[in-house]
């Protein structure tokens, strides 16, 4: 379909870019400035094109047919001028609106052409191929205010003071421990010894839990017959020794 005669249509399907694009293509056939184009003539061209496509059984998208209907209406309005109904645009206004759209699309097509006619990077002009110089160095700036410094010191001093005041967890001497200790020690003791001598050294002999646990342990060992206990007066010292083997 490249045969081209004056006033005839070129059916260039590759160029189809919607009804406005087609109208613009047809308008170019008129070879006049778009501002002076005859919308009436253009409408006739378009309708002829659609009729021809129909004859050739070309499948046209609905847009083209809608545009055809609209142009047929516009054509009739332009040919038979009568005042428009209330609130409806006049035929001239409709024609001007169409002409504006054609001009606008043409402007964009020309703008696209101008853009791509520029010296394009990677096509016409080239950037330096050299890798960018590695000249960047990183300088660290340390963020610390005087407040940070002082509060750190104050906090550290406060924590240090708190450490001195710390109350140690009470050490508890269990009866089981005392019993094990007493049992292991008493095996070698044949003479009477005071209970105080069997207190765990960790508690310096004076720890309440050490004394209480060792006393409880001595009672238990006496009950099971492994030691003998003796107390001479009330609240007097408690004596103990290993039980004599039964004969």
């Amino acid at each position: 379909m490249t045969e081209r005669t004056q006033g005839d249509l070129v059916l260039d399907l590759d160029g189809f870019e919607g009804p406005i694009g087609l109208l613009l293509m047809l308008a170019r056939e008129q070879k006049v400035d778009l501002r002076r184009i005859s919308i009436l003539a253009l409408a006739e061209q378009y309708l002829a094109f659609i009729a021809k496509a129909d004859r050739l059984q070309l499948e046209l998208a609905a847009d083209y047919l809608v545009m055809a209907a609209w142009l047929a209406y516009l054509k009739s309005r332009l040919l038979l001028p009568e005042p428009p109904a209330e609130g409806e645009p006049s035929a001239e206004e409709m024609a001007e609106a169409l002409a504006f759209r054609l001009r606008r699309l043409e402007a964009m097509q020309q703008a696209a052409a101008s853009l791509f006619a520029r010296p394009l990077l990677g096509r016409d002009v080239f950037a330096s191929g050299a890798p960018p110089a590695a000249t960047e160095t990183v300088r660290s700036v340390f963020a610390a205010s005087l407040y940070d410094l002082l509060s750190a010191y104050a906090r550290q001093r406060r924590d240090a003071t708190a450490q001195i005041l710390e109350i140690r967890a009470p050490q508890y001497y269990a009866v089981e421990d005392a019993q094990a200790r007493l049992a292991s020690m008493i095996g070698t003791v044949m003479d009477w010894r005071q209970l105080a001598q069997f207190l765990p050294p960790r508690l310096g002999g004076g720890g309440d839990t050490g004394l209480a646990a060792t006393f409880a342990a001595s009672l238990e060992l006496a009950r099971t017959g492994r030691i003998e206990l003796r107390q001479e007066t009330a609240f007097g010292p408690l004596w103990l020794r290993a039980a004599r083997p039964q004969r």
Partner: protein
Amino acid sequence: MTGEDETAAIDPEEAAEERQRLLRVVEAVVFASAEPVPDEALAERLPEGVALAELMEELQRFYRFRGIHLVRAAGGWVFRTAPDLAGALATERVETRRLSRAQIETLAIIAYHQPVTRAEIEEIRGVSMHKGTLDLLMETGWVQPRGRRETPGRPVTWVTTDAFLRHFGLDTLKDLPNLAELEAAGLLDQRPVETLGETGTDRGEPPEEEL
């Protein structure tokens, strides 16, 4: 000692030497950078009070007839090979995917009408947009969505990028070809053409254009 005295004290020969050194510095900085170097970045390298514009003009003049040119792109200074040597450098050419006519038009519309919605692009072109058109333009790195139109549905608006400016050798969007003429002719106005309701995306399922 006043400032005037100090200035007067400078040896003219020394001043010329210093100026030569500054020229060399900006030349090297621009050359070494991967991206166009903005004026501010260059000014930072120079002593206070040095007229950067004059320096750059001198440097640009110096390269005017050479194989590489000092040009503006995307808001900064950059060296590029001279456009007239395109033929001699053909082997350097980067094969880029050819854009379809629809994509080229869409790119131009985004460039000149930005920020612009998809529906507005369709309105200008008078055809509904193929799904892949914006995708591929995004892939080139030349367009990106930014912002939304404060209309019902808050549609995304599209703009061009710095990569677009660099690729097309434009300093700013104001340097788009024929921008002033198009503006003067009212062709960039946001002007919905309501008398032609037959195209656009309002209708159910417009056929997609041929690519």
